[in-house]
């Protein structure tokens, strides 16, 4: 658990802070103001917002004023933003359907900015595998370090689970079950909810959000990709009832082409482990079980992650573990010999919306400023893979996109398909 001791790790580097250009930070709405902004506030000597790009310049100017971002310049178009050389790192937090065009234009025009070193994008990386591949390729050619917000990898619960698995505390993994919830894809939806969320072609769906984040977390915990998979995608709710601001039914209906259920099964390449998943679209939520369950059964113990909200990457979870005591690990209150160790890990006051994103920024800062003397990371991180250290990159994102593509194909072809990512 040494990666939890941070008192000696400097967060005030001798060098200047990384200058951050932000696409899609608005003081008035969106995800970035709830997560990225409070995270950056906690690391002002490592990150400083110097440029802001929104759909209209007024939003940027108003945001600069409201958040007192005195060092920031407002931009109204991608090309001038991209060539602004007072930026070391670009953070992109825009709606996924717009992402591809913006990132490609950004990468192209950023050649005029010799200082650009990092691009940090929200998951998912475009609408589909094709866009993700193109973005990954363009970023590689541009030679920047990429970061993707698969922030579930930084959840303390996921890290703790990964520690227990990697230390052999549950022995070999025998089988895994997952149940999750997509939130918006049930029988009802808020009237103000953006339409693209419900359009199968937008690429933002139960598959990309709930499945993408959760399955990435599973692969990260178990340190294994899948070797073969089989999936069935459902759209049993083609029309949803619209709800007003107070959650009351308006009587109106709206079309939905995005999936409302996913059945997924597969085997992990390491150990041929059976994995069985059921992703529910949304409301009504389950009455007799948790909306998020990752249940891992091993030869020497069990490990279970539970959450009330369906999204593992941004909710406060509970970790249950029962199994083998690791020799030489943290001393445990001893009982009779041969007794199992029980562990329950829950952090009551942990703010997981800000916290997991903050930990990605901390990892970027540790990487850039080499503030952690124990680091073993290479100067350039092609992909995080299954390392504790570092952060997920576009390459890690691409692997999840490839898996999602296989899921779609399996469902369409009604067949089990091989998947191989070890070689990528």
């Amino acid at each position: 658990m040494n990666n939890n001791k941070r008192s000696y790790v400097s967060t005030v580097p001798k060098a200047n802070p990384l200058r951050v250009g932000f696409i899609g930070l608005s003081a008035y709405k969106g995800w970035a103001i709830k997560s990225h902004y409070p995270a950056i506030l906690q690391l002002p000597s490592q990150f400083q917002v110097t440029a802001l790009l929104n759909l209209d310049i007024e939003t940027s100017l108003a945001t600069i004023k409201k958040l007192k971002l005195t060092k920031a310049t407002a931009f109204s178009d991608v090309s001038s933003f991209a060539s602004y050389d007072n930026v070391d790192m670009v953070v992109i937090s825009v709606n996924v359907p717009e992402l591809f065009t913006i990132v490609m234009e950004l990468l192209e025009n950023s050649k005029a900015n010799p200082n650009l070193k990092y691009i940090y994008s929200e998951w998912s990386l475009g609408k589909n595998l094709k866009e993700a591949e193109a973005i990954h390729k363009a970023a590689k050619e541009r030679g920047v370090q990429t970061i993707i917000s698969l922030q579930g990898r930084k959840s303390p619960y996921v890290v703790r689970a990964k520690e227990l698995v990697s230390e052999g505390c549950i022995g070999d993994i025998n089988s895994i079950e997952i149940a999750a919830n997509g939130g918006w894809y049930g029988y009802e939806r808020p009237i103000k909810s953006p339409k693209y969320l419900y359009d199968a072609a937008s690429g933002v769906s139960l598959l990309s959000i709930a499945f993408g984040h959760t399955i990435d977390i599973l692969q990260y915990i178990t340190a294994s990709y899948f070797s073969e998979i089989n999936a069935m995608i459902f759209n049993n709710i083609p029309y949803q009832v619209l709800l007003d601001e107070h959650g009351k039914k308006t009587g109106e209906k709206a079309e939905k082409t995005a999936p409302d259920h996913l059945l997924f099964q597969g085997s992990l390449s390491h150990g041929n482990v059976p994995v069985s998943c059921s992703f529910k679209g949304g409301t009504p939520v389950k009455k007799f079980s948790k909306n998020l369950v990752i249940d891992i059964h091993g030869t020497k113990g069990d490990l279970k992650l539970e959450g009330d909200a369906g999204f593992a990457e941004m909710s406060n979870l509970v970790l249950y573990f029962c199994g083998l005591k690791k020799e030489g690990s943290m001393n445990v209150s001893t009982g009779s010999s041969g007794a199992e160790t029980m562990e329950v890990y829950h952090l009551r006051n942990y703010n997981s919306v800000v916290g997991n994103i903050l930990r990605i920024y901390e990892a970027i800062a540790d990487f850039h400023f080499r503030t952690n003397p124990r680091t073993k990371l290479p100067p350039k991180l092609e992909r995080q893979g299954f390392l504790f250290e570092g952060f997920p990159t576009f390459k890690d994102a691409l692997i999840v996109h490839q898996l999602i593509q296989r899921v779609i194909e399996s469902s369409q072809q009604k067949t089990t398909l091989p998947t191989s990512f070890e070689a990528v």
Partner: protein
Amino acid sequence: MILSNELTSLKLPMSVHSFDTKGLPAGLRPRVSRIVNDFQSVYGQTPHFVSRSPGRVNLIGDHIDYVDFSVLPMAIDADLLCAVGVLSTEDIPSITLINEDPKFAQRKFDLPLDGSDISIDPSVSDWSNYFKCGLLVAQQHLKTQFPQKFQEAPLAGMEMYVSGNVPTGGGLSSSAAFICAVALAVIRSNTSSNYKVSKQVLTQITVKAEHYVGVNNGGMDQAASVCGESEHALYVEFQPQLKATPFKFPELQNSEIQFIIANTMVVSNKVETAPTNYNLRVVEVTVAANVLASKFKVALQRTGNLEKGTLREFMDAYYSRYHGVSEPWDGNAEDGIIRLTEMLHVVEKSLTQQEGYSVQDAATALQCSQQEFARDYLTNFPVRFEALKLYQRAKHVFSEALRVLLALKLLTSRKSEGDQRFLESFGDLMNESQKSCDTLYGCSCPETDELCRIAKANGAYGSRLTGAGWGGCTVHLVTRDNAEQVRSALANQYYRKRFRNMPSEELREAVFISKPAQGSCLFEI
């Protein structure tokens, strides 16, 4: 909280003392002037004030504060100083923290402009988390006191330089000293030098601050750090109300009572080991209280650190049902001694599984499912265990609470019974407490046992661990006449053996004699 003067003839002040340059106590002058200089050299200007809060040593009554039983600590000379420069209104108010000790790297963070709470990540061990605890509780207090000013606006930015000589992880409560000094500094920074900070308020708001970093502690450390008085130990009660009562040690005819504090040098970080040590004990005593309640068919209220009832509450419920005593115990020593003695019989008869209780055993005893048990008792803070030792933990708590009452009677009774008799009686209570911590509570360690053995063999009347245990410091009852003999025996037989090249300055910090010290205070520059 109540600060009571009932056991002392002096009229003690109710608010935190604020000194100006002239009134500075002589003993503190060199350290205050040094930290002012250090602040000046890192920030390039003079600080506005220095806030100070001492460490504490608990004489007797360990691991019972979170069960609401009374304790006997005193503030010590070792303390924590924060030199502070308050920043005038700027773009985004920010906090900069620099620590004299290079183990604690520099920190800087901005405060949310809308006055919302900063978030604390309890999954990592980071010294700035303790600062944030103090900041958070002070901010919440300021919001209730001055809602118009602080409800939707940020606090003032601060530059802080921290210097402490309370050993960290030493069981002398460096964390509470830091949190109390920070909370005091934040209130002072956002009010004025004329604003009187009440000791009662400062204790009340800091008591649970450490819960934000994931330690489910009681309120002893904060009460001692804030309410300490020179020449006085404190009797701290948690029920029926949080109350600190300073009292002087009885005067010996031929000598003077002194305490030696000796550090095992085994660092015990409460946060880092909480799942198997500190927080696990809190869970065990809570489960024990509920298993007893279930066996004796009495109901507990939702009090205590897990909001599931405490062993003290079980005692009240038991007395209400089986002895027809409708009022909870009010703290009266004679009544307490009778009831605690009966509780020890109850534990002996009822918690028979001496090898420990598995989750299954505990759930069965509480007539609930294993899932319900896990949800109700194990999800408040991370815990890790093989078996829950309900018998041993409950026995320790009741017997230790009993020893505190006996010690209080000894210390406050005016009748003189001869120096030797008094020292031996008090010393015996300390020795029994150490034995109980070791064998029943499992919070001692070989180094602690070794220090206690050496001290006792060389004239200490009583020797025990202090604070949470699992390393940290020990405390030894001596007189002015034999203090040097005990101190040098410890130096020769423990420190010089284990740490051959220990510089004499470090040795002076590892084993020292402390008098009861003054609690939190401010120095205006």
